[in-house]
Structure formats: C-alpha cells, structure tokens
C-alpha cells in the first residue's frame, strides 16, 4: 500500500523539489539533488527546512509530528529523479549520526521490496562501499535503479 505523501512542486530539471509539511506547524521544505564532483552522474540527496531568510537548513529538526509522511515524500522524489536521470547514483546520509542510523533502519525494513528495483549499498567510515547489510554501520547510503533482471 502506498504511503501518503505531500504535494510536490519540482524544478524543470527535477533536481529541486518543494513541499509543505503540515503537522503541528506548516513548514516549507525542500529536497535537492546536488552533483558530486568528479562524477558524471552521481548526486547527493539532501532535504531540509526553508528558513525565514529563504535558504535551506539541512540541520534543523522541526519535529512536526509528520516524519513518516515527510520521509515518504522525500523517497517519492527518487523515482521522479531516476526517470530523468536513469543511470545515476544517489548518495544520502543523515545530517547527524542518529539520523543516518534511522535511515539504515528504514532501508532495512523496506529492503525486500527495495532490492527488486534498486541496488542499495552502504558506505563505511573507512571508505569501503558494500552491499547494504542491515547490521552494519554506515556513514551514508548509495542507491541506483536496477536494470538487469536478476535479483
């Protein structure tokens, strides 16, 4: 069953997405995909709150009581991104170690479904990249759409 997500607006290049989180407060948020230097098609996925000064704050913890919906919204942009950039690699990590661990738990929970259509890797703090293992500790995660038939 698909999880509820917020209505998104995106830039024409599908590298920036915006939505309003409606929980205790209404908070405007943005999701951005930033090219990683030295790679033709690797991008870092980041999201955060838009501040009063009009920039994105990636560290703010808004605690708006809608975390699952916010996360589902962020995840929904991945398929839109891959439609536009089909063979790209997405890298993401939490803004804090606790958030990175939280993402590991979420990936682990969704792994059976995720791996049917995506390759998921974990980046270890010694720079090694390995296929995602739910019990391993990572500093970030890599995801790419799977095109081959084998699983």
């Amino acid at each position, binding site marked *: 069953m698909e999880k509820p997500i917020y209505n998104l*607006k995106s*830039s*024409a290049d599908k590298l*920036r997405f*915006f*939505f*309003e989180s409606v929980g205790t*407060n*209404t*908070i*405007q948020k*943005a999701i*951005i995909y*930033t090219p*990683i*230097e*030295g*790679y*033709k*098609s*690797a991008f*870092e996925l*980041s999201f955060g709150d*838009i*501040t*009063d*000064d*009009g*920039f*994105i*704050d*990636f*560290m703010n913890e808004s605690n708006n009581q809608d975390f699952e919906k916010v996360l589902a919204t962020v995840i929904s942009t991945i398929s839109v991104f891959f439609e536009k950039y089909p*063979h*790209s*690699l997405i*890298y993401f990590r939490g803004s804090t170690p606790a958030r990175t661990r939280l993402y590991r738990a979420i990936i682990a929970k969704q792994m059976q479904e995720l791996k049917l259509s995506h*390759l998921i*890797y974990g*980046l270890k703090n010694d*720079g*090694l*990249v*390995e*296929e995602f293992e739910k019990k391993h500790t990572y500093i*970030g995660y*890599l995801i*790419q759409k799977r095109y081959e038939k084998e699983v």
Partner: protein
Amino acid sequence: MKKKFDFNNLDEKLMNEIYQKTLKTPQYQEKIQETNRLFKNIQLPATLIVK
C-alpha cells in the same frame, strides 16, 4: 508559523532563488565539500556504473 512563499505560486524563478541562497551558506558548502572529499577516496563497486 510564517510561510516563506506562497506554495501555490512557487515558480522556477523562486525555486532557483532559494537554491542560489542555499549554495552560498557555509552549512551547504561544508556539506558538499565533505561529500566531494569522500567520493575522491572511495572505490565504487563495479556494479554501480556512474562515471
């Protein structure tokens, strides 16, 4: 909470303004530099085709 823009009227120009402002923040610069540094030193598995 004060809204920073009218979501219904959010257009390409405003999206770009927000992005451009974000690019200049130390927080974003630090984050991107850290990622770029990290990716200079990692070896991606052959199954991940990115170059």
